[in-house]
């Protein structure tokens, strides 16, 4: 039997009082007459040796009442017995050793190996033990079968050797998934012929706050598995980590090289706030002093550097642990928009289409030029293959049209602006067949407006927001009516009279976008609208292959190397078998399968994706969660509903286990309510005692001498 409030059992010592009272009880029968009591005062009773207890039953009843009340106040309960399954009675243990990046601090890994050694040495002859290292996933050191096959004398050595070979890694710690997987392994190993006496998971870890435990939130923990914590504790707790950030848009807006920023995270238990930030490469600017209070994170601009490389390494100094003080950068190359404009219009004619298009792509005013002029009289196919989009504004020559068609068939996009009915010929030449017919539309009112717009199409997606979706202010005085016999035509926008305004015609690998009205003042005031520049940019962006801007990853993250190369090198095709490789920071190359070009880095640093002559650097960093090295708080395991074995947890988590045990005990006692039975028994005893005491008193008075 256990007690919720065992201190009340001390009240049972009060049972000595009835014994004393019985011994010093004064007899009513013994009276003596005296002349006067004026000089006498009441004497306290005293025990003498010859006193004896006369009414044993009464005494026992009184003692029993006191004892029952003391027991009731102590709130007893019967601990639910652990059903010991029949069988050989062997323990089934899984030893989980944390090998995440945070275990690289100080001597944590050595301490973990010490725990491992102790557990391996304490193993009983019938115990079934498996040892696994875990970070993001489980890595076997010694499985159950291997343990059984090993000679008893060599198990400890084998465990230590294999664990030493694995060592701590750089990945995150997913403690939740590791615990669940350990239970699954125990279930798989437990055969039908025997059932272990107890099942236990020994978790050897630094129990950092950054470890992942979400998997346990929805997990139904089995009743017969307990977790025993063996925490390893760092002596120096001042730790700050660095996480790289960079801003691509800054560079795209032409503000110079990509702005490199970083986030510095200072741990909760850290006592330091001053750190230094500098570039790893020699000859860079002096270190930058930064201030980050404990338990907070700050974003800082990296110190300036003379060379604007797309890769680099930032170093953080000033804390006790170096493992998370390196931030590797790899910024993608920025490709400006390149547009070809083929047409017979004078370039600076404000009545022409090209005048506005040049300004929309930044020609003039000091902006990088987006319009790529032909090297010769007309564009060549090769030139057009290098641009993102081809605008045909009318009057383009046959050579331009031929080159454009070839480029479109190769995957490019051509935008044809139908200014007049003569544009049908250019269109047919592009299409390679006589399918288009163009007539001048008759606008009944003063102007036409865009009415049916496909906002879900990527070209108009940027205008989908209700704040930007109003095109009624753009007036079209003229437009052409286009008829196409091609069933593949997709109308992206119509005028309010129902005529198509923008159509998309796929052609081989590319496409042709046809605008049935120009943006010049003769046709409309579109060029003067605030929507003109984003519209033409959107058309060009639509025609470009998708670019992957991200070149920074975390350790353990699967990276599509082929996709990385394609999007960042503006190519569409890769890879024959064996041609794709990755070079790690140590300089070693390893092949990546073409069919499944996923690569998982295991260490932080600058990697290189290689394909023939193309190379692409990408950076791999530590997960920022590993920088949260403070040990878990007291409610950690309580929140996870993970049953801890009593008496073995560390002082920080021991109270969590104690709290949980106390709650369990309170719940058990609340269900059993044994105190009520004890109180009832005490009341019954007191009733009997009262009756017996009265009967004895009456009998004594009846026998007393007159």
């Amino acid at each position, binding site marked *: 039997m256990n007690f919720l409030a065992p201190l009340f059992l001390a009240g049972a010592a009060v049972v000595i009082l009835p014994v004393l009272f019985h011994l010093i009880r*004064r007899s*009513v029968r*013994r*009276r*003596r*007459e*005296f*002349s*006067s*009591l*004026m*000089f*006498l*005062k*009441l*004497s*306290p*009773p*005293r025990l003498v040796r010859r006193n004896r207890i006369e009414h044993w039953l009464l005494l026992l009843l009184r003692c029993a009442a006191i004892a029952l009340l003391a027991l009731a106040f102590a709130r007893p309960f019967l601990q639910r017995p652990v059903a010991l399954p029949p069988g050989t009675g062997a323990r089934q243990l899984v030893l989980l050793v944390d090998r995440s990046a945070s275990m690289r601090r100080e001597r944590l890994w050595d301490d973990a190996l010490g725990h491992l050694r102790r557990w391996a040495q304490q193993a009983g002859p019938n115990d079934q033990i498996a040892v696994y290292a875990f970070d993001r996933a489980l890595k076997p050191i010694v499985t159950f079968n291997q343990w059984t096959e090993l000679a008893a004398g060599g198990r400890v050595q084998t465990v230590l050797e294999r664990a030493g070979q694995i060592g701590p890694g750089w990945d995150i710690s997913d403690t939740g998934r590791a615990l669940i997987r350990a239970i699954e392994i125990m279930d798989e190993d437990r055969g039908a012929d025997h059932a272990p006496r107890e099942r236990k998971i020994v978790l050897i870890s630094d129990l950092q706050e950054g470890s992942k435990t979400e998997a346990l939130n929805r997990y139904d923990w089995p009743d017969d598995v307990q977790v025993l914590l063996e925490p390893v504790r760092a002596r120096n707790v001042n730790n700050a980590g660095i996480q790289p950030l960079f801003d691509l848009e800054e560079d795209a807006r032409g503000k110079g090289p990509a702005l490199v920023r970083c986030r510095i995270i200072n741990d909760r238990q850290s006592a330091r706030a001053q750190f230094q930030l500098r570039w790893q490469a020699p000859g860079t600017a002096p270190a930058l002093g930064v201030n980050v209070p404990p338990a907070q994170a700050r974003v800082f601009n990296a110190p300036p550097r003379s060379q604007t490389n797309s890769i680099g390494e930032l170093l953080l100094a000033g804390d006790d642990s170096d493992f998370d003080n390196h931030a590797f950068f790899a910024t993608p190359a920025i490709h400006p928009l390149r547009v070809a404009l083929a047409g017979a219009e004078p370039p600076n004619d404000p009545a022409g289409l090209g005048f506005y298009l040049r300004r929309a792509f930044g020609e003039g005013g000091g902006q990088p030029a987006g319009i790529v002029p032909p090297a010769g009289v007309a564009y060549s196919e090769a030139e057009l293959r290098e641009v993102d989009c081809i605008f045909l504004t009318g009057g383009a020559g046959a050579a331009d049209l031929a080159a454009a068609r070839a480029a479109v068939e190769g995957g490019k996009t051509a935008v044809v602006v139908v200014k007049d009915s003569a544009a049908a010929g250019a269109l047919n030449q592009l299409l390679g067949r006589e399918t288009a017919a163009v007539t001048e539309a008759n606008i009944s009112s003063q102007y036409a407006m865009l009415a049916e717009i496909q906002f879900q199409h990527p070209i108009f997606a940027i205008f989908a927001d209700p704040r930007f979706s109003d095109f009624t202010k753009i007036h079209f005085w003229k437009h052409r009516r286009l008829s196409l016999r091609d069933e593949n035509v997709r109308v992206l926008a119509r005028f309010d009279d129902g005529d198509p305004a923008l159509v998309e015609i796929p052609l081989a690998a590319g496409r042709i976008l046809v605008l049935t009205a120009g943006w010049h003042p003769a046709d409309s005031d579109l060029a003067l609208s605030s929507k003109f520049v984003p519209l033409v940019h959107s058309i060009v962006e639509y025609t470009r292959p998708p670019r992957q801007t991200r070149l920074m990853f975390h350790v353990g993250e699967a990276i599509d190397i082929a996709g990385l190369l394609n999007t960042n090198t503006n190519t569409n095709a890769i890879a024959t078998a064996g041609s794709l490789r990755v070079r790690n920071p140590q300089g070693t190359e390893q092949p990546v399968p073409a069919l499944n070009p996923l690569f998982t880095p295991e260490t932080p640093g600058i990697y290189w994706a290689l394909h023939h002559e193309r190379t692409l650097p990408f950076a791999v960093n530590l997960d920022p969660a590993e920088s949260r090295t403070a040990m878990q708080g007291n409610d950690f395991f309580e929140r996870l509903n993970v049953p801890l074995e009593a008496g073995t947890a560390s002082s920080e988590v021991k109270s969590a286990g104690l709290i949980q045990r106390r709650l369990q005990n309170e719940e058990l006692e609340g269900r059993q309510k044994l105190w009520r039975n004890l109180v009832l028994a005490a009341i019954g005893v007191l009733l009997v005692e009262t009756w017996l005491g009265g009967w004895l008193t009456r009998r004594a008075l009846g026998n007393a001498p007159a």
Partner: protein
Amino acid sequence: MSSAPGPTPAPESQFRKGFIDPQALMSIRNLELRARIVVQGFWHGLHRSPFHGFSVEFTEYRAYAPGDDPRYIDWRLYARSDRYYIKKFEEETNLRCILSVDQSHSMGFGTIGFTKAEYARTLAATLAYFLFQQGDAIGLITFDDAVRDFLPPRHRRGQLRHVILRLEAPSEGKATDLRVPMRWMLDHVRKRSLFVLISDFFAPLEELAKVFRSLAACGHQVVIFHLLDPEESNFDSHDPVLFQDLESRAELFIDPPVARAAYLERLETHRRKLRDLCQSHAITYQPVTTSQPLEVVLFDFLRLQLSRRKRHVRRTRQ
């Protein structure tokens, strides 16, 4: 002429030899007989003592001068001293004595075979017998919380018998009020008298001072016999019992070995208070235990009276 110097009182131990043990005396049922035995025993003891002529100390003497009435020549003294002495104020040596006996319930306590009340009656009867023999007038007051009986002091034939009979009468025995007999005395006895109060004095003493003063102012002489049982004086019992007050019937659990020291201290305080009260009012205080032979008590009483009378004579002569 000064009175003849009195002999030094013999040690009590010399007197005790041959005296009757009080327990044996109390076994005599007749009170007058008891008194007679005590007085005779007293005289007998006195004659055995080396001090003779004790009785002559009870009179005033002066040398015979020509012209004195020869009827007052003390011939016994002449026989012893061969000189003529005249008994002076002999008629003034005849006392008027009122014996006041406490008959309250507390006097009914006794542990040596008889109660304090029996002893007090015997003592009163003895004094009455002795004084009556000496020619003194005797009277009686019996009281508890009120005067129960009163005999005015007389020296007539049959007065002693009346006193004895009144003493032998059974008493109700109630609570004690010590002022009662003295107030009665003040109200009913005009002539200067000897007031002898025999009581255990188990009552508050606060009101006695006023009455004592009144008695002294009226010229009365007061002698107090503070009578206690040996158990009351020593508190020697051992068993813890429920003590019951004889007068109030109140009960109290007492463990004698535990309570003895405090009891004796309080009793001694009470005695001292009473003694001081008597001393401050020129009252003769005589503590008596019921285990004491009455002859000795009588002897001490007479001795104290003699020494008091000497002091009085000395003052009147100056």
